[in-house]
């Protein structure tokens, strides 16, 4: 662990897909110990940024550093990534996915995963392809949150779940909180998550237009982050 490095740092990070610029000279850094909201309209570049931190996309120019290192084996070991889509091998059962994650990740806690599966009613012996969409999403979230990672990247974690499960998920994120870890939540359901955030990043058209603490936003504008967002991004 590099104790002097920021946990996540972007330096003039740019990502182009052909002529399309998804991220445009993004620069910011995040310390450990925060729950950060990555907010912005569709197509703003949130998922692109997250995928770059996860090591699934390579920069066109600029740099992205996790704990001082470019994405690689070390960063993947300390980053826990939850994509928006299902990414598990559909023929595995939840129990097999637990074993899989235990094999690959030193910081994975199989007991914790098992407990969460019980609480969220995930059938542990049915192959993933036979589970409902909502259950698949819960399963993936459970696997991601059962790791003791330093950077959690959650892309729309509460998008498709019912309110009870949503509260459970937000509560789990809070319970999981560690001072040396940071959680990035990318979502458009700001009102639901606002309360657990302490910092937000606003992205628009691939540019970073705001990085601020939640309390400062509320104090300076007298509005919630949700309302601020609507104002800033008013069509």
């Amino acid at each position, binding site marked *: 662990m590099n104790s002097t490095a920021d946990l996540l740092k972007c330096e003039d990070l740019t990502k182009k897909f052909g002529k399309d610029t998804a991220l445009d000279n993004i620069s910011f850094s995040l310390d450990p*110990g*925060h*729950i950060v909201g990555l907010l912005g309209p569709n197509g703003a570049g949130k998922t692109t940024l997250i995928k770059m931190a996860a090591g699934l996309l390579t920069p066109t120019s600029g740099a992205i550093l996790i704990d001082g290192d470019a994405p690689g084996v070390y960063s993947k070991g300390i980053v826990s990534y939850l994509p928006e889509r299902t990414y598990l091998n559909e023929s595995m059962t939840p129990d097999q996915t637990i074993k899989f994650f235990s094999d690959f990740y030193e910081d994975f806690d199989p007991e914790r995963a098992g407990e969460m599966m019980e609480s969220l009613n995930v059938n542990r012996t049915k192959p993933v392809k036979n589970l409902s969409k909502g259950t698949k999403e819960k399963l993936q979230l459970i696997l991601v949150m059962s790791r003791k990672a330093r950077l959690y990247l959650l892309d729309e974690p509460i998008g498709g779940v019912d309110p009870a499960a949503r509260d459970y998920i*937000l*509560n789990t994120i*809070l*319970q999981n*909180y560690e001072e040396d870890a940071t959680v990035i939540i990318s979502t458009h359901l700001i*009102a639901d998550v*606002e*309360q*657990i*955030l*302490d910092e937000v990043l606003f992205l628009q058209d691939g540019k970073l237009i705001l990085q601020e603490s*939640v*309390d400062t936003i*509320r*104090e300076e504008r*007298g*509005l*919630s982050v*949700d*309302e601020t967002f609507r104002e800033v991004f008013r069509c």
Partner: protein
Amino acid sequence: MKWQIDSDRPVYKQLIEQTEQAIVSGIFSPGERLPSVRDLAAEAGVNPNTMQRALAELERSGILYSQRTSGRFITDDEEMIDKLRYQKAEEDARTFFDNMKKLDLSADEIARLLRAIFEEDKDEKSASNE
């Protein structure tokens, strides 16, 4: 305890207010040990850093004190708690007074209104004692 967080005011301020409220209304007793920051934050559904900020403020004002190994405690200075209680009462009273002024009630009308409510409350109390 039940936390009620509004969305348009800084969270840490609301946490301070509601913690003070809990102390003066007896939900937390003087000298009682508080749960950990993380547990409180999870209970309130707020970010632990924000809860930490609120608790730090309360420590600064003396309502809370912390001992490095044993955690955070409510002060057992009953006088301070009483002062806080009157402070809150005064704040509420001023808010009430401002609202009454907006409704254009005179000082007499306000006093009569309050007394009537008081009597009502006394009657209800003795009725439930029978």
